[in-house]
């Protein structure tokens, strides 16, 4: 494994966007940084600006008011970047599916690398998802390539 890739995996900076969610997923994401779950011991940190981020975590139904903002934020994140959609709403609308003012999935707006299902997913599930993205889980699956991000 290249040094660069190893170094990047040791510190992953995450920016959270609440795109019209009930806050449940966002709270569990933030809870994962608190002492009980402590995702920071794995080098994962929540950052206050998209320009500092490696990974964008999106929650919620992405309603029309949030659509453009989400795209803008996505563009502000420097390459290489990855996107995780957290929660049933972000996956496909969740329980809100069919409402007149919701989208049916974050991947309809920006490219998504990983989905974490749940309503909301537990902090452990969120941490597991982030680790999976980094290829750190026991089943070494689709690890992200050296310095490249998935464009499709």
């Amino acid at each position, binding site marked *: 494994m290249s040094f660069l890739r190893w170094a990047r995996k040791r510190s992953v900076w995450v920016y959270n966007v*609440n795109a019209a969610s009930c806050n449940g997923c966002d709270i*569990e994401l933030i*809870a994962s940084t608190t002492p009980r779950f402590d995702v920071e011991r794995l080098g994962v940190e929540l950052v206050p600006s998209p320009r500092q981020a490696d990974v964008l975590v999106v929650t919620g139904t992405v*309603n029309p008011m949030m659509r453009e903002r989400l795209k803008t934020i996505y563009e502000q994140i420097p390459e290489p970047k990855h996107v995780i959609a957290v929660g049933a709403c972000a996956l496909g609308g969740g329980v*809100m599916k069919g409402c007149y003012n919701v989208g049916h999935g974050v991947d309809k707006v920006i490219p998504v690398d990983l989905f974490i299902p749940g309503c909301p997913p537990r902090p452990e599930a969120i941490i597991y998802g982030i680790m999976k993205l980094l290829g750190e889980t026991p089943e070494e699956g689709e690890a992200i390539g050296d310095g490249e991000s998935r464009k499709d």
Partner: protein
Amino acid sequence: MSESKGPVERTEASAGLMQYSPENIVPFGPVHPALKEPEYFKLILEGEKIVEVIPRIGYVHRGIERAAQDRTWIQNIYLFERICGICSFAHSLSYTTTLERLTPFEVPRRARYIRLIIAELERIHSHLLWLGLVGHWTGFETLFMWIWADREHILDLEETITGNRIHKSFATITGVRRDLPDNIDVALKREMKYIEGRVDYYEGLVTTEETLVARTKGVGRINQDVARRLCPVGPLLRSTGIARDVRVEDPYAAYDEIVPDVKTGKDGDVASLLVIRLEEIRESCRLVTEAIDKIPSGNVKLTVPRVIPEGDAVGHVEAPRGELLYFIRSGGGMKPERVKIRTSTMANILTATEMLRGHTLADVPVVLTGMDPCFGCMDRVSIVEVDKGKLWSIGGEELRKYGIDQYGARRRG
């Protein structure tokens, strides 16, 4: 960017009514409600001070009231609880309590006690969550971490009883979905004692720690006159000294038998809100302990009806943030004809804009957090600087940092 054409014409509001018409802000350059990026709060500054606040909400609008008409009465419980991840049970409780008024059924006494216990556990977790956020917004990361670690105790209890931490799907029509686990009283009483101890500690902290006091005392002040005009709810209302609480004024669940002591403040500022919410946590611990001691045996629900008789009903509960109202119309079928929901934050937005007036940017995070809004809405604020003719935008995080820096500078300089 075009220059301003002069100081803002403060249309003098009669009885405090704020004039929001577009004409008032058009003179200030490319500022117009039809901006590409509509913001949650548009702040109009004269010099350093905020003179006007124009809220634009809709960021979390999903179309739930309409969706409710396509779902059955039971399915709607799962829909409504996902309006908010913090007061999820309050929603399902307000909905079921109101709906039950259209039926001839009476909720069994044991179920009413269990509803009270879960509702109070939710109040504790919500207030703790909020308190942690106050820590975060004022630069006390350690406080935030400690409080959210304490909060996990409550979430564990909720998970043991209901099966989930956040969306508990626990209330049902005529009661709750399942009974309490055996011997839960031991864990409940132990954790309530633990939380009470932590509250004692935090209360000492928020009333003596220099920066916290400086950032909250006298900040965001409202009085009873504002409360009368703008009808806020919850701790915000009670911070003015008005002792109103739906649990006492209109008892539901088991609050007629286990009566809460209503906590009020007198200064109407964010410092009062800190104390009130801490006292409410303590009071909730007492209510849970009393409820689990006195809980009667019996059913936890009746046979849940699929069809609700025709009629209109209105009802409300005291969610952690205040009065949460549901209006329901049944046409006699399996789905509602109309459900109208008025959340506590909606009732408080006007008051929040009042709270911001006269303050500087550095106070905005604390004031807005003080009202305890659903924080997904706080992502962005846009500023109109009247005398400089500038329009600019600031994100929540930058505002937070700005506030911390400003207060640090004030202390040093």
